[in-house]
């Protein structure tokens, strides 16, 4: 099959999954400490930048951004999207098996649906071929470009 992903490309997709979900969790925890921000108190957003949870969340989200952009450079946006959704599954499973939280039947169903979605998309081609790019991609596939 054309456009089969390399191991390093799967590693990038795993990084996309982990950094996004863990980064978001850190941010929400940080914002819970900072408190409610409204239009009259936008200065609180500046204060938020000094919260350790927010800082580590931002660092992870920069890592997410880098791996996400790398993935988008060789795969379709609609191919990479389910990988970010899989991050929610990671968070749910971590809370179940690491924090021993109870997962309701709704959550298990949600996990199953997202896993199915990843399966659907991963089974298909990772990239739409466009006429103008074909010659270049063929060159890469033949290994001449390396």
């Amino acid at each position: 099959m054309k456009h089969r992903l390399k191991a390093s490309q799967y590693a990038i997709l795993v990084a996309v999954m982990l950094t996004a979900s863990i980064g978001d969790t850190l941010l929400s925890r940080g914002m819970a400490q900072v408190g409610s921000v409204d239009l009259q108190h936008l200065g609180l957003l500046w204060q938020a930048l000094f919260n350790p949870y927010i800082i580590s969340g931002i660092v992870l989200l920069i890592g997410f951004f880098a791996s996400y952009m790398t993935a988008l450079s060789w795969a379709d946006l609609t191919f990479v999207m389910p990988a970010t959704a899989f991050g929610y599954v990671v968070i749910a499973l971590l809370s179940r098996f690491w924090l021993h939280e109870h997962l309701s039947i709704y959550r298990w169903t949600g996990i199953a649906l997202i896993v199915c979605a990843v399966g659907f998309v991963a089974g298909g081609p990772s990239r739409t071929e466009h006429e103008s790019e074909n010659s270049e991609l063929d060159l890469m596939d033949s290994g001449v470009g390396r």
Partner: protein
Amino acid sequence: MMNAPTALRTWSAIGGVAALAVVGEVTIAAAMRKLGDLDIIRERSGLPGAIRAVLSSPLFLVGALCMALNFFAMLYALSIVDLSLAAPATASLTYIGNAVAAKLFLHENVDSRRWLAVLFVCVGVVLLSH
């Protein structure tokens, strides 16, 4: 009341976050597609070269601006809406918007399995927040 935002305020915050995310992600995807495989660029000109290539793309800069605005819009939204509503609502809206925009503007081949995946992810994300 400060602590009970109206439905309009809640949903405009959520809609705004999702719209910024869609514009940002589609623009960045377009920029990356135009740039070509980052792994190959990095092999050829190193990490600094790859970073320079990305930063000198105008499409990327527009997309990054949208994502930065999206970030602050999300911080704002999280302060007036519960995470349990804001996260799944913005995620679902962003997924649908991205799939439509990827088909319309990036001319990606969004086939039935990808539409099915969008549907499953949206329902799945909502169920996960229960």
